[in-house]
């Protein structure tokens, strides 16, 4: 069809305001306003920064807490143990993987070069073999001087008169297998967040689509899908999980898949209700009159207006995902043994009440993480509300 409206070639002066110059992020004016609204929500904005710092830091967990040095110079050769497995015979040992914490190897390397270590010399599964007290061992700063000195003496440290500085620090103590709690926290935080984001992302994509289709088309589509969902969501999730995890070893992705089977349902009723309400609005009729396809009406006209309810719900879905994983680990049906997991930390806290640092750290980290996510979600919701024009 010809387009009668393109009259620009007639040399008429342009009427449209120039597209505003876009800043660093190339945001459209509307998104700029959304960003300004987001920033105006101080608590959410700061929560986002704090969360991002921790999250990005935990993404590089290998560089913060690891039982291998970052860089090793050995006999004039520069090695990167973080990225590469070197067999121990390279340094005169016999293991398939080098244990850089082993005193003989460390001495060999230091005699023939140098090592740069990450700030924490434990990985999530490194066992501290020089515990000052039987595991679980309290944070080093909680130890008395006598305890430290006796430990230093026992393991033959060099500076036995320096008190607790003579032994390697465990900032948050160790768990009941002698593993450093801080290192496990960093790895566990990363795992929880990634798992939560993946689960929340995929399940809301499925849930929003299902809810949108049901609400928008209504009638038989809605009726049948609602019944299917009712039956589906009344299946006993936990028992199924337990049965499945006794057949296949639950890895990250297996757990993600199993939880996904049930978690997508949670967003459906909210989105469906919003769509049922919105689909009769006149602007939807107007869009139909313009000849728009159903898919376009759903995604461009109805969905944005159903977004406040959805966004309000989203932080809870994300938190729910994280909590589910934690709960499964706590019950022992989660990730394989040895994985860094916040739920496992809580479980240890429960079974070792004499070591309160386990339970307390686990609680504090989970509470802080969940609160930060809820605050961020709150700010995002405000940002997308068109009636809000900052404060």
């Amino acid at each position: 069809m010809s387009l009668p409206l393109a009259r620009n070639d007639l040399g008429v002066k342009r009427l449209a305001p120039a597209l505003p110059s876009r800043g660093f992020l190339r945001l459209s004016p509307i998104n700029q306003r959304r960003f300004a609204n987001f920033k105006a929500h101080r608590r959410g904005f700061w929560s986002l920064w704090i969360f991002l710092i921790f999250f990005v830091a935990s993404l590089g967990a290998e560089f913060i807490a690891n039982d291998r040095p970052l860089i090793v110079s050995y006999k004039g050769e520069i090695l990167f143990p973080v990225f590469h497995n070197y067999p121990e015979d390279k340094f005169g040992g016999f293991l398939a993987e080098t244990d850089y914490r082993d005193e003989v190897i460390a001495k060999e390397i230091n005699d023939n070069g140098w090592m740069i270590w990450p700030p924490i010399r434990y990985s999530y599964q490194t066992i501290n073999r020089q515990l000052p007290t039987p595991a679980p061992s309290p944070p080093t700063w909680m130890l008395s001087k006598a305890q430290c000195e006796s430990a230093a003496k026992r393991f033959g440290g060099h500076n036995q008169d320096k008190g607790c500085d003579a032994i390697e620090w465990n900032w948050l103590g160790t768990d009941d297998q002698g593993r450093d709690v801080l290192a496990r926290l960093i790895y566990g935080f990363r795992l929880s967040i990634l798992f939560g984001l993946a689960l929340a992302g995929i399940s809301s994509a499925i849930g929003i689509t299902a809810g949108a289709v049901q609400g928008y088309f209504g009638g038989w589509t809605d009726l049948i899908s609602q019944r299917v969902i009712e039956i589906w969501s009344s299946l006993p999730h936990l028992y199924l999980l337990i049965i499945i995890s006794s057949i296949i070893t639950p890895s990250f992705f297996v757990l993600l898949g199993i939880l996904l089977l049930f978690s997508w349902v949670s967003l459906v009723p909210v989105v469906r209700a919003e769509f049922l309400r919105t689909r009769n609005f006149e602007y939807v009729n107007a869009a139909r009159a313009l000849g728009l396809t159903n898919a376009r009406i759903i995604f461009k006209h109805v969905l944005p207006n159903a977004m406040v309810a959805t966004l309000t719900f989203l932080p809870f879905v994300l938190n729910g995902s994280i909590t589910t994983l934690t709960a499964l680990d706590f019950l022992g049906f989660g990730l394989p043994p040895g994985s860094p997991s916040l739920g496992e930390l809580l479980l240890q806290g429960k079974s070792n009440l004499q070591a309160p640092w386990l339970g307390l750290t686990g609680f504090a980290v989970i509470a802080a993480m969940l609160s930060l996510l809820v605050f961020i979600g709150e700010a995002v919701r405000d940002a997308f509300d068109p009636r809000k024009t900052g404060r």
Partner: protein
Amino acid sequence: MPFVSDQPLLTVRDLSVTFTQGDAKTLAVDGVSFSLEPGRTLALVGESGSGKSVTALSIVRLLAQGVAPQGQVLFKGEDLLTCSEEQLRAIRGDAITMVFQEPMTSLNPLHSIERQIGEILELHGLCRGAAKIRARVIELLEEVGIPNPEERLSAYPHQLSGGQRQRVMIAMALANRPDLFIADEPTTALDVTVQAQILELLKTLQKRHGMAMLFITHDLGIVRKIADDVAVMQKGRIVEANKVGEIFAAPQHPYTKALIAAEPKGSPPATDLSAPTIVEADDIRVWFPIKRGFLRKTVGHVKAVDGVSLTVREGQTVGVVGESGSGKTTLGLALLRLIRSQGNIAFLGQRIDGLQSAAMRPYRRDMQIVFQDPYGSLSPRLSVGDIVAEGLGVQNRALPVAERREIVARALADTGLDPAALDRYPHEFSGGQRQRIAIARAMVLEPKFIVLDEPTSALDMSVQAQIVDLLRDLQKRRGLAYLFISHDLKVVRALASEIIVMRQGKVVEAGPARNILKEPRSDYTRALFAAAFDIKVEAAAALDQ
């Protein structure tokens, strides 16, 4: 209890109301003063947002919490703004009563009307004992003209029509023989014929009981009919106050002059039978099945549109008039194939009934619709530019973004909006501006046929006139064919060259506008015109409640 004194019944002195939202303060009412004597009617006139309703609500301190009106409201010598909440409660519903605009939501849907009216009587203790209260309720219902009041006692609000509900509200307001009756746009939500009846009723009741009435409206026709004194409000101030005759004869303030001049004027293009036909519809029927029983058998039909035929020609307007529920909107939607219908529809000579939605898409650019409610018809989450550009994207995918913006800007400029508004959200615009955006959205595709579904009813008078001018101007420039649906006959008179009068889905009368307006043939049309143009109740049995 008539109030005998030489002072006025109600004196409002220097009333100001400020709304605070965040740091922003809005002065909704700014130093308003007036007085009202027993037995007289004062009309507060102004456009929406001028502070009329806020003024009325602050008299009985019914504003939202935390909003404190400043000034003085003396009722029988007592300052209502400083007296205690208990004293106020005794006055509200007793000496001062109110009727609100929306009859659909001002009655409690879970209580029978006997209970709702009886509650007021009981609360203020004028009537004791169930039998006495019942007798008084029946008396009141009779007074406000509800037929067979004994049988209606146990009716629930949803069983009553809009006009009847408003009558029940008035009965509640009259229950304790108030001295001051505040009516906040009591007829705006009603059909013209019902509006005329309600106004008539209010006038007789006022005369009979000698109460003072504060009447809030935006409709000058009603003011002329009912008021003794008029106060014109603009932006929270009273700009002019006078006797009703003098206001209309010699308005002083420019705003009053503008308001009075705001009635839709101008005449439609003459009927031209030789103009090419755009839309031709024959025997259109939209029947909704009524299903009953376990097997959902169809036992009958609601005939929303029942055998309507019409022809819309290029550059001409067909006006469809009728009360609410007469099937006007359904007819418009059926012509655009937005709901299922039977009967032939030909668009530019092509049969379009029976086409699937994908097959309809090429036709959509030539046929558009503008809806009644400018607040509901624009998606609040899209910018104005996106809203108007939406159709362009569907009809021409290859259009570059910059080009599209330019076309949208032109369409906005054509409808009298600043193109710089492109990147703003609809909620930042007034009702009239939003309706312009909706018109721009329809116009941007350069359609040949537009269904205008009450495009002016949600707007203020002065804005109505502007929109009517805009529509006529666009029609003249582009040779558009309009189907103009409205219950507002003044607007139809200004736009339509042909008129179809509908009632309960059927055509009562159809023909050239000039003939029908001059000499309507059916009783129904005559009653409709009397109610619309003179706000008079025609004694035609043809009208329902």
